[in-house]
């Protein structure tokens, strides 16, 4: 079950004279509709998931405007979707999480860029970089350079975002080149407002279809011999057009005095951080009225040589504020200055660090070095940095030991946790095996208390990453993959390849019914229902179609059975790939559906049995083996009530959803008798009450001192 975006959808319908309030990524969605986009697609992933999520629930808007929406199964498919704009005058936009998504899309992206487009083609990438990121830290910039795709890195405020989306389509069409629009995590989630415009229907769309296919034109194919011409066309024709468009429409911004002796060239996405530090040094204010000449590059590729030389010509020095490695912009600017024979001193990664996020502290430090060198008073910055250092070291001293980290973990009642519990118990009983981990919620299995996983090689790549491992290991490796990863890449890169090569290994597919880590979006195998897009395509049948014979299904919460099945797979005489499909619905999605339904049932007087787990505080001796096998957020510790015991004991709090894992672990690992399940029969029927009364009466006969109260005093 997907999240409901009722309020956000209303935002998409705003027209002229109305004000949009909302997050950056939804402003992008609205801007797409204002730009007359004809088709939209992509693959979900933080921080851009909502772009698609909202459109998925906006069927009326899409059908009214004739916008086609494609839920792509991976980013390569999304990039390939833009092929419609090669031959037809229709604007298209796709989105994904970068760098990983761009990696997957790279093949289609190269082919698209080579052929070029006539309809505006926009790729909105969520640059998952810095604090809060969950992927490898690399720059999307590299792809823009190698494929000659234009790259925008915007000032993170909504009016700029919206204007740039609209301009991107124009830029794309005028230069026949796809445009990438890069938004960092905080920019995607930034809340702000802009003056909305009425949505525009595309002239060519699913409501206005073209009668004839494009005329055969070999030049539109990314195939030799025309690829040689295309390579030249990209740099000789398309790029100068783009540079001119960027200058004409002032996509980059010149702020501050025109004739300052020093200047800063900054990626648009970092402008707010820079301005904050300049303000602190007394060189700017909250309105961005900076005293230091600043060139804000909302377009980071291509750079206009003219714009760079004009900006630098009269300056003693410039500082390039460019996040991440390598220093593409600094290199490019250096080359431009050198060729123009300008003697302006170039600073960048000599003042600022080569790698890592440019936080306010980092930028302040670099700015102080740069401005200090050129005679500005930077005492406000340096004293601030010194005070910060003193303050944090005082806190560290007072704390004595570092604070424990709090990485994310499986939700309460998550169906994937029991599989890792079973793996850990099996590991304790036998010994470990190589575990190839994957992308998805199940990657939390690499954290404590499970600490399982030897490598992560990408989304759906676990099985492929274990292929050579099995040749150097006595025991079979185990690969973990989610249903998300399975459809994204795993079925072909992993399963088909293993079947083809007769790889001997074990694959566990976590079938929780959704792409949960990205926000419980539907997958091809999701259950079909009224609201979602699920088609119920069976994972098991897909596996059997590839000729696999050793395929077992387990209910994840049955820890003992999961353990036994995994043990059987590891010991089986079968030499091929052995697959365990671990079924258990994402608890986040399940609770979203079940909770209101249950509340309604109880309110209307229906009989409902609510379950949760409980730990007997008198029986628990506080060794917490259970926590080391479960890691459930609702399984926690509390002080012992026993005056003789000093260590805290385990405790189940009221977040428990009664998934039953505690009891299963207590049995499977033969832990302790402290666990109990509580069944609360709400709105009990007459028969329930009769049975209970009989039991109580007979128990009294056998010496129960008094009947436990049926209900507590409120």
């Amino acid at each position: 079950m997907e999240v409901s975006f009722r309020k956000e959808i209303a935002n998409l319908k705003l027209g002229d004279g109305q004000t949009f309030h909302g997050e950056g990524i939804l402003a992008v969605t609205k801007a797409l509709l204002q730009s007359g986009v004809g088709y939209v697609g992509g693959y979900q992933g933080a921080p851009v998931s909502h772009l698609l999520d909202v459109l998925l629930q906006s069927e009326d808007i899409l059908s009214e405007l004739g916008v086609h929406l494609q839920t792509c199964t991976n980013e390569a498919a999304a990039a390939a979707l833009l092929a419609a704009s090669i031959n037809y005058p229709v604007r298209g936009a796709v989105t994904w999480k970068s760098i990983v998504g761009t990696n997957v899309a790279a093949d289609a992206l190269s082919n698209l860029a080579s052929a070029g487009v006539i309809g505006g083609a926009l790729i909105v990438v969520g640059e998952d970089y810095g604090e809060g990121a969950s992927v490898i830290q690399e720059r999307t910039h590299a792809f823009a350079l190698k494929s000659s795709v234009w790259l925008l890195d915007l000032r993170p405020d909504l009016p700029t975002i919206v204007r740039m989306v609209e301009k991107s389509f124009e830029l794309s069409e005028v230069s026949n080149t796809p445009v990438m629009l890069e938004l960092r995590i905080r920019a995607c989630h930034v809340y702000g407002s802009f003056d909305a415009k009425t949505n525009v229907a595309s002239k060519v769309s699913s409501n206005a279809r073209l009668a004839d296919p494009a005329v055969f034109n070999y030049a539109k194919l990314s195939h030799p011999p025309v690829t040689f011409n295309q390579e030249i066309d990209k740099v000789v024709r398309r790029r100068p057009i783009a540079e001119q468009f960027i200058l004409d429409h002032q996509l980059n911004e010149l702020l501050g005095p025109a004739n300052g002796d020093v200047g800063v060239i900054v990626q648009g996405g970092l402008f707010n951080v820079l301005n904050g530090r300049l303000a602190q040094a007394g060189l700017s204010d909250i309105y961005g009225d900076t005293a230091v000449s600043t060139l804000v590059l909302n377009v980071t590729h291509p750079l206009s040589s003219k714009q760079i030389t004009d900006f630098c010509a009269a300056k003693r020095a410039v500082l390039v504020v460019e996040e991440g490695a390598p220093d593409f912009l600094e290199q490019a600017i250096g080359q431009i200055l050198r060729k123009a024979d300008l003697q302006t001193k170039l600073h960048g990664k000599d003042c600022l660090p080569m790698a890592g996020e440019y936080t306010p502290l980092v930028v302040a430090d670099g700015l102080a070095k740069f401005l200090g060198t050129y005679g500005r008073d930077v005492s406000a910055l340096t004293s601030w940095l010194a005070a910060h250092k003193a303050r944090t070291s005082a806190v560290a001293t007072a704390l004595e030991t570092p604070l424990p980290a709090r990485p994310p973990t499986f939700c309460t009642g998550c169906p994937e946790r029991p599989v890792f519990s079973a793996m850990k118990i099996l590991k304790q009983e036998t010994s470990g095996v190589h575990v190839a981990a994957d992308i998805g919620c199940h990657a939390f299995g690499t954290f404590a208390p499970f600490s399982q996983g030897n490598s992560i090689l990408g989304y759906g790549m676990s099985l492929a990453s274990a292929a050579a491992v099995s040749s150097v290991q006595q025991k079979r490796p185990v690969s973990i993959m989610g249903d998300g990863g399975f459809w994204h890449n795993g079925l072909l890169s992993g399963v088909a390849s293993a079947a083809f090569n007769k790889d001997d290994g074990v694959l566990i597919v976590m079938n929780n019914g959704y792409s949960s880590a990205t926000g419980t979006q539907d997958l091809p195998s999701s259950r079909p229902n009224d609201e979602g897009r699920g088609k119920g395509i069976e994972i098991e049948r897909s596996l059997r179609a590839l000729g696999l014979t050793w395929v077992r299904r387990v209910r994840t919460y049955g820890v003992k059975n999961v353990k036994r099945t995994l043990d059987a797979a590891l010991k089986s005489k079968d030499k091929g790939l052995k697959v365990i499909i671990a079924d258990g619905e994402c608890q986040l999605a399940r609770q979203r559906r079940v909770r209101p339904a249950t509340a309604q049932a109880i309110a209307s007087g229906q009989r409902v049995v609510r379950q949760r787990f409980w730990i007997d505080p008198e029986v628990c001796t506080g060794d917490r083996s259970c926590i080391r096998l479960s890691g459930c957020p609702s399984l926690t510790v509390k002080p012992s009530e026993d005056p003789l015991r000093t260590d805290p004991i385990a405790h189940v709090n009221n977040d428990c959803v009664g998934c039953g894992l505690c009891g299963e672990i207590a049995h499977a690992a033969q832990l302790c008798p402290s666990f109990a399940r509580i069944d609360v029969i709400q709105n009990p029927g007459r028969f329930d009450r009769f049975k209970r009364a009989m039991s109580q009466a007979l128990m009294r006969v056998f010496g129960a001192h008094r009947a436990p109260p049926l209900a507590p005093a409120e």
Partner: protein
Amino acid sequence: MNPVALPQPTRLLIAALGGEGGGVLAGWITEAAVASGLVASRTSIPGVAQRTGATTYYIEMIATDPTRPRPVLALNPAPGQVDVLIASELLEATRLASTGMITADRTTLIANTARVFTMDEKMAMADGRVNSARLIEVLEKAAKTALLADLGTAATEAKSPLSAVMLGALAGANVLPLTADALRDAIRREGKSIDANLKGFDAGFAAVAATPPTSAANPLPISRPVSALAEFQARTSVLAAEGVKRLTDYQSAAYAETYLAHLRRFAKVPGVDDALLADLARHLAIRMSVEDVIRVAQLKLRDARVARVTAEARARPGDIVDITEFMKPGSEEILGLLPPILGQPLMRLVHKRGWSKKAMPLNVTTTRLSGFLRLKFLAGLKGWRPRTLKYKAEQAWLSRWLHLVEEVAKRNPAAARELIISAKLVRGYGDTYARGLANWDLIATSLVEPALNTSVATPDLADQILQARLAAEQDPEGTALQATLESIAQWSAART
């Protein structure tokens, strides 16, 4: 361009755990700011942190000035420039203090003193919890004003989400350019669970109003009132009384009397003071009331349990509450009920055949007749207990331990105290119990007994036992204990 003369935004940072409602809270605040005619920006870094990881939300708000361009609001909080920090959890508040986000010249801190323990704290084999008092001390020192209150309990009592209580606390602190009514209206406009949220809002408002600034809520450990035994000194008397009570319930008054006899004997050993005797009173009572199958059944039939469970599970009047116990006595626990003459040969057979992992899973519903009767039968075996194999084994362990303690106490009381405390390694059930027993045995044979067998003074024995126990509590695999014992052995060899 003079930043001092120009207006500055109010900057607010929220520290929370993902999925806890921090996003909702941030939403209410920004909505209220916009509705109050301010320019507001808010951002977050949810990503995978949505799954209970540490995360933050950042808000800036400033009065609009139609004569000026749009303000450039920051997306990243800067240390030293946070006006208000509101934290849903004590450790997360402290985490931000440690990154410099709370400053004494500027920051009003509103923090929930309730703890949500991290995995590291929870999975530690001994007490891994971070000392809350120290966190509170750090926060009080770091902030300009620290409003620390148990907002978690306030939320539970108000049956309201924590986010609403936090919003109320923020209103109560009166540090934003927003009225309390503006914040309440944000809840109403959102239109979800309005009544519950407003109730929580009021609870939070009251909690902060009632909290004198910089006075921390005091998380008190729960303890039962205890009587005291006059014949012992202060600390021992309380614990010994508790021990007698427990052992009388566990077995009999006579059994409790043997416990007291041990204590009296040790009280006369030279070098044994109240502190040492108190530790012995504690650990001897625990070890003498080992949780065998009979004891577990007894505990599970306690009258007070159902009422307690009913309250904890928040059952309503008229609901029926059933309790199903998850018990899985292993072969050793079951055979332990037999007399040694039968139990020992069977136990040998079980080990020989590798059946020691075999166990009997029992899901017993104690609130129903059949389950009740099964446990009643097991609990009724109390009188039989002294004849069982398990009892004999426990008594053998006890006499070895007590003998070692007594001998060590004569030479080195500090080491004797550590040896007493080391008994806490032996606890739990099944594998945990076996592992604890083995670890303790390793300490006894490799550290304590050699020390007793030598005429050389062993001043380091106390520290060695302590280090070994801490190592045994570090990891269930026993890796740390092995390493510690090896390094002690090497060090001792080098000295002689």
